[in-house]
């Protein structure tokens, strides 16, 4: 492979249009979800062992840190789903132009923030 290609990692000098933001967030939430599953599957596993451990998991989930973790996980999942669905629309040939791509990007960011607020209020 050609190793002489230029590399520019001065990220603050690179413009970040909505489509780029949506793309990197999809990656960040995907990786974050993988690690969040450690907690989710751990909580799920112990919640099903006995009524007592179910009670202690619920107690943890009702604490401040527990609620923040649940909201964070749900929010990351919501974002990753919205980004994933947008991906699949693009696979079918939609939103691939500069303008429609940026518009669909702004749309899912707005929807994500709105859904996170709603779910955040409900969970809290």
């Amino acid at each position, binding site marked *: 492979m050609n190793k002489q290609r230029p590399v520019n990692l001065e990220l603050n000098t690179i413009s970040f249009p909505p489509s780029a933001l949506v793309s990197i967030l999809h*990656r960040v939430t*995907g*990786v974050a979800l*993988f690690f969040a*599953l*450690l907690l989710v*599957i751990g909580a*799920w*596993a112990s*919640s*099903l*062992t006995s*009524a007592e451990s*179910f*009670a202690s998991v619920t107690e943890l989930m009702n604490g401040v840190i527990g609620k923040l973790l649940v909201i964070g996980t749900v929010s990351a*999942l919501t974002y990753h*789903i919205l980004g*994933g*669905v947008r991906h*699949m629309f693009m*696979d079918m040939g939609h939103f691939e132009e500069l303008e429609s791509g940026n518009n669909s990007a702004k749309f899912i960011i707005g929807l994500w923030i709105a859904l996170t607020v709603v779910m955040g209020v409900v969970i809290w």
Partner: protein
Amino acid sequence: MVTNQASIKRDGVQDFVSLRTTAIVILAYSIFMLWFFVSTPTVTYEVWSGLFSNLAVKVFTLAALVSVMIHVRIGLWQVLTDYVKPHNVRAVIQFLLNLIAFAYVAVGLFVLWGV
């Protein structure tokens, strides 16, 4: 074009399709869970363990966990090949992450077995 079915080397089209089909399974499971939480007034231990003692829910849960394993096997590989260039380092990280993903499925299997 000659396609070698016995080849271990993964091909991109298969990865593309697998990533998306597994995404749809996980999406369906997420919607199912959301529906459960929204439609159940109070989630008690009885309701919760009752849910997972249902055979269909067991199968669905296991399908979702296996889908996550396949999804991240491909997804995390995409991420790692972008950022971790030395292939021996990447192989080690990839192995550890895939081990965790496998553990998710194994834990799920034993939990569902016991409910």
